[in-house]
């Protein structure tokens, strides 16, 4: 994030560059393989021929957090998994986004009990929640599109302030 921070600090806000960068980020958002439970199967369905996330340049599921931009938390996060999830999130380089896929990741879903985090936003900051148990692949793609919208509205200045 070095470049942006400097640009932001200098007050040089080049909108064109910003929009190009944001366009690049939305079109090459590599998701991290983070399947946990049922939703992971629907996430795989979203990758498959019928829905084909690769259209958005998202077929490169990275196994390493170091190379991924988007963490799709697909499924329930147990108390044992929470620290691992956080650690993976910390290993991802900026800028990064988190999509909580499904009810369990969003709010605990039907599992309102001792074992499950009531929403993954207790562990990592979440950008978009996708409802459904599990959400249909279309819903997931809609969630991704929503993140794209969000990314398109971001400016260097915000980043510079965020990571100061």
């Amino acid at each position, binding site marked *: 994030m070095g470049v942006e921070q400097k640009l932001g600090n200098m007050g040089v806000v080049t909108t064109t560059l910003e929009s190009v960068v944001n366009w690049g980020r939305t079109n090459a958002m590599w998701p991290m*393989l*983070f*399947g*946990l*439970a*049922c939703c*992971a*199967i*629907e996430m*795989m*369905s979203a*990758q*498959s*021929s*019928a829905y084909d996330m690769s259209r958005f340049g998202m077929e490169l599921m990275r*196994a*390493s*957090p170091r190379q991924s931009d988007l963490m799709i938390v697909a*499924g*329930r996060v*147990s*108390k*044992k*998994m929470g620290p*691992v999830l956080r*650690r*993976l999130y910390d*290993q991802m380089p900026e800028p990064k986004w988190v999509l909580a896929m499904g009810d369990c990741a969003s709010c605990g879903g*039907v*599992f*309102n*009990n*001792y*074992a*499950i985090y009531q929403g993954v936003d207790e562990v990592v900051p979440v950008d978009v929640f996708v409802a459904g*148990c*599990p959400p*249909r692949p279309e819903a997931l793609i809609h969630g991704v599109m929503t993140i794209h919208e969000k990314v398109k509205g971001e400016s260097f200045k915000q980043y510079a302030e965020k990571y100061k």
Partner: protein
Amino acid sequence: MSQIEEVSLDKFKHLVSERALTGETMLLNMGPQHPSTHGVLRLLLELDGEIIVNCIPDVGYLHTGIEKNMEAKTYQKAEVMTDRLDYMNTIGNNLAYVMAVEKLVDLDVPVRAQGLRVILTELQRIASHLVWLGTSGLDLAAMSMFLYCFREREQILDIFELVSGQRMMTTYFRPGGVWRDVPVEFEKAVRDFIKIFPKRVDEYESLLTKNPLFLDRMLGIGKLSKEVALSYGVTGPTLRASGVDWDLRKVRPYIGYEQYDFNVPVLTEGDTYARYLVRVQELRESMKIVEQALNKLPLGPVRSENRKFVPPPRSEIGVSMESLIHHFKLWTEGFPAPKASIYNAVESPRGELGLLLEGDGGPKPLRVHLRTPSFDNLAVLSQIVKGHLVADLVAILSSIDIVLGDIDR
């Protein structure tokens, strides 16, 4: 990714060999987030070069507290939990649960409902095996396999959606029958599937079964003997690949499996290739069952008429006071079940899915225990991977077809 790099040896001291303590062998942490552990399984590997000396599975990263949660719900409402148990086999889990409830309260099920249950359960078995085939192809880097399998699975999910409105978590089976009758398009959808699927299976086989690289990865890897398998409680295709002819659908027929003509594929070698072949043959056998069941499917009610346990149809509620009361009672309070315990097992795609259901006389179960097949199937992993390479571990793990939701519950 190995996220928890610092493996503290103290906890595992008694499980690794002495060489690990001197640093001669390497401890490698695989998971809980790793592309080929099929979910959140963590494997602690003790490696000599790339040869596995010891493999210590660490489960529980998906522990959901389903059993505890089910105790807090009434018999009807607890059913949704079973869907999320083994998420590849949602309908099969429903089946195990509703059968257990029916057995506990002694409820009979109409014939048409039984037929529908058979069709959907077998379709679910096919879908589950397709996910297995696809992901195990992916594990061996045959990535096209994955996409082809998911293409067919999509078709099955469409059928599920047609009958229940949901793709995966259908909760379509209810104690005393099924939720409602299937729509008219159902038959055509299933027939379409029956028509194309056998050809597709041939296609898969032509990609893998005789492929020399695939054979090389599969043959003689991860041999599991009959005795070890039984001692570890391994069931399902994994057990049948080791030469034990044990399929609950055949030996203790339920929901009318005795009426259908199908074979139980049994192989004796017990290696990954045998497990692969058994499952691929099961795809074809399940197809046969679906076809027969569809041909035999009678007309008639799909829910039991016993109003003490089964809510009346919507249309009656507006007309009959009694129905309204039943409906109200059932959905607010639930139905009481006797103070007794039953154990009911069905054959899931992964093995014996048993359900120990104990009632305490009230509307909520005292104890629900889910005897999930993956749990025991995974336990045997540390026995069969010894002496193999890391790459083989991936093949073996995919060949025993575990689902973490099934293990951690």
